[in-house]
């Protein structure tokens, strides 16, 4: 039984609608690859003892589409980032905020507190303790998020 909560699609939809608008759509997805070569990004969450306890993986399309949507950057900027696999700093800053808000989905009245520690644009740069913690995170929920005007991307939530 995971220590932290995992959202269902309905709960994810409520939060995503708040972030990106009522037309945002959520459907079940497949687990995202945690290998460094995958190009996926990862947010690591820590408990009050600074121990990594949860992670949120996203693919580059989600990072670009979600990162652009939050401050209404041009759609073309998101498309370019997906094509070149290079995210502008503003997109990463916005994605950090998205990951921060999504942390609420990992907690409920029964779980310990956690908070976003770091967003790693490169899975290869994950510190050793986070890598070890990631290997122990057996609870997961996986989604495909359709960000209105921008496009789809994948999101995987992982908890110990």
């Amino acid at each position: 039984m995971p220590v932290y909560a995992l959202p269902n699609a309905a709960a994810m939809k409520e939060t995503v609608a708040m972030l990106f608008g009522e037309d945002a759509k959520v459907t079940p997805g497949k687990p995202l690859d945690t290998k460094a070569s995958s190009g996926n990004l990862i947010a690591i969450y820590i408990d009050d003892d600074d121990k990594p306890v949860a992670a949120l993986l996203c693919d580059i399309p989600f990072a670009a589409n979600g990162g652009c949507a939050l401050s209404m950057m041009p759609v073309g900027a998101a498309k370019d980032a997906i094509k070149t696999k290079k995210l502008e700093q503003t997109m990463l800053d916005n994605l950090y905020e998205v990951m921060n808000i999504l942390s609420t989905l990992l907690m409920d009245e029964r779980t310990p507190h956690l908070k976003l520690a770091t967003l790693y644009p490169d899975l290869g740069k994950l510190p050793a303790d986070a890598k070890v913690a990631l290997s122990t995170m057996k609870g997961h929920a996986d989604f495909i998020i359709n960000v209105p005007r921008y496009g789809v991307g994948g999101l995987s939530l992982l908890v110990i």
Partner: protein
Amino acid sequence: MKILIVDDSSAMRMIVRRTLREAGYGHLEVLQAGDGNQALDVVRKDPPDLIFSDWNMPNKSGLEFLEALKEEGYKIPFGFVTTEATAEMRAKATQAGAKFLISKPFTVETFTKVLEAYIK
């Protein structure tokens, strides 16, 4: 009419602004602050007519900000927009003088219902 949005997340401040627009209140003047101390400075310089504040913030929480407003004699309608929406927190908010508590994630309809009482 002036509204003050207080949240340490710039994304949340953007989302609240967008939600106000979508609720039909885009014409209102919006002030912003990143924590309770900044918010108090904003109020002293340019008092708003309504305040939306997060609960947990560095450098003075939303609750501490509300207490400070009362101590300084301000009577501005104040509400929380927060993930802290347990019955205990709602009771604390009401006891402190908050007029409403909007829990995250919220919808445009949630905002509309609350705002109709305060915005003309």
